[in-house]
């Protein structure tokens, strides 16, 4: 008798192993091993009861509470939900939150502060993309049209020297797919997620010290150092430029092979590159994880 791998057994019973070599292996174990057989029988019986329980929950109404509904009504009536939102960013979009001032406090429940990503900018111009964020990092100026070539990328910034469009696509880039010049199909299915940016509140003039506030909902938490600080990101891009002389044309706070990573496109004299940096980018070099020709 062998020890039952309950995860594997659950996968088998649930059909997750179909078409894999493990399917036959587990089937053999269940047929030949009394422990596996008993566990499989028990699990199948239990799952029928779980399905019944879940069906009860599914049939139970879960209406939006009246106070929450009222807040959404107010929000929907606000300018934030005015039509034709893509035409131009409006001041304050993304900053508004549901007004909880009238929410009765729950006994013993501390109110969590709103998480907000605030980026004080002390450099150069901030040209704002429609849905993405453009970091005012003048020395690392871009050729903006490149940004629009990435799948799922938000609308490209107007072509202008200076800023680098940055966003958090929520994608998980795969080594092999990048080598092939395409993003992973699985990741590419998340197009609405790129919209999870809040639009910046202002566009700064050169030399302004502007405070751009926005949400990078899909940025992995492991990249907080870079998403929270333009200085940190500037050091990262400097390190990248040292490693790969050229111009960084876009920045995606995403994942690479499952790990938090800054995925950049770089224009170099020899062509365009993917350059993937880890969370330590800019601390002691670019923390390079991967690079590959883009074309």
């Amino acid at each position, binding site marked *: 008798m062998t020890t039952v791998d309950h995860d594997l057994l659950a996968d088998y019973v649930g059909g997750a192993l179909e078409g894999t070599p493990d399917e036959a292996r587990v089937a053999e174990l269940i047929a030949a091993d009394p422990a596996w057989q008993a566990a499989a029988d028990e699990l199948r019986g*239990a799952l029928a009861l779980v399905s019944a329980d879940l069906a*009860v*929950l599914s049939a139970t*109404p879960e209406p939006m509470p009246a106070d*929450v509904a009222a*807040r959404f009504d107010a929000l929907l009536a606000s300018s934030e939900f005015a039509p034709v939102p893509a035409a131009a960013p409006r001041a304050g979009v993304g900053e508004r939150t549901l007004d909880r001032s009238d929410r009765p406090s729950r006994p013993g429940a501390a109110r969590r502060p709103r998480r907000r990503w605030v980026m004080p900018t002390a450099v150069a111009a901030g040209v704002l993309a429609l*849905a993405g964020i453009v970091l005012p990092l003048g020395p690392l100026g871009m050729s903006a049209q490149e940004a629009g070539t990435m799948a799922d990328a938000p609308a490209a910034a107007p072509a202008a020297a200076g800023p680098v469009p940055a966003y958090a696509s929520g994608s998980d880039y795969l080594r092999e797919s990048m080598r092939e010049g395409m993003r992973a199909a699985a990741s590419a299915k998340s197009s609405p997620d790129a919209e999870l940016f809040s639009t910046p509140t202002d566009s700064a003039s050169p030399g302004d010290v502007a405070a751009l506030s926005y949400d990078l909902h899909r940025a992995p938490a492991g990249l907080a150092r870079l998403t929270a600080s333009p200085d940190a990101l500037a050091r990262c891009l400097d390190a990248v430029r040292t490693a790969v002389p050229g111009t960084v044309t876009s920045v995606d706070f995403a994942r690479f092979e499952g790990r938090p990573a800054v995925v950049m496109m770089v224009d170099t004299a020899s062509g365009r590159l993917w350059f993937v940096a880890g969370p330590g980018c800019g601390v002691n070099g670019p923390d390079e994880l991967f690079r590959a020709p883009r074309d």
Partner: protein
Amino acid sequence: MTGPDPRTDEELLAAHAAGEPDAFGVLFRRHRDRLWAVALRTTNDREDAADALQEAMLSAHRAAARFRGEAAVTTWLHRIVVNACVDRLRRRQAHFTLPLPGQAGAEEEDRHGPARNEPAAPSTDHDTAMVVRAALAELPYDQRAALVLVDLQGYSVAEVAEMMGVAEGTIKSRCSRGRARLAVMLGHLRNLSAPPDVGGTRTQDLAPRGGSHDHSRS
């Protein structure tokens, strides 16, 4: 008093994209209870559910013009909502994973013993719903989200895989393992003794046939 707007979801979304002021609100109110249920059952927290739903609606509001009709509007909305919820939970990184039967350590046994090993014996459907909801809340969030969409909302595995951007096998695995954990927590499956799930914080998604490349719990 006017009756319900007779337009379809697609028509409302198109009207919104064309600039009609109230179309998005009509669409949202039409589906808000279902969307709320998804958000609440996925986040298991009223505030998180409201915040995630707000983020999702802002996102949908802005992205409406690019809706291409590849899926139903409700599927599109659910996808945005559940991803907003999962993102919120992922950022918090406060989830833990209950072991499958046979994987509980002593500490876990102490903490979950009665709920895991004794039948919950609910007396009514309402009680059952409460117990199941509480158990669901104990699952890792990716398993929970998959079960909410598949078992509670009735979406197919393929649709949920599309929504969450992972392979179908990954959704099947999340559902299977989630249900197995629920079986223990709901008292339908006895707990066997075996080595604990080290750290109680991770399980690996199965990634059959090319894999999901999903490392959301990393």
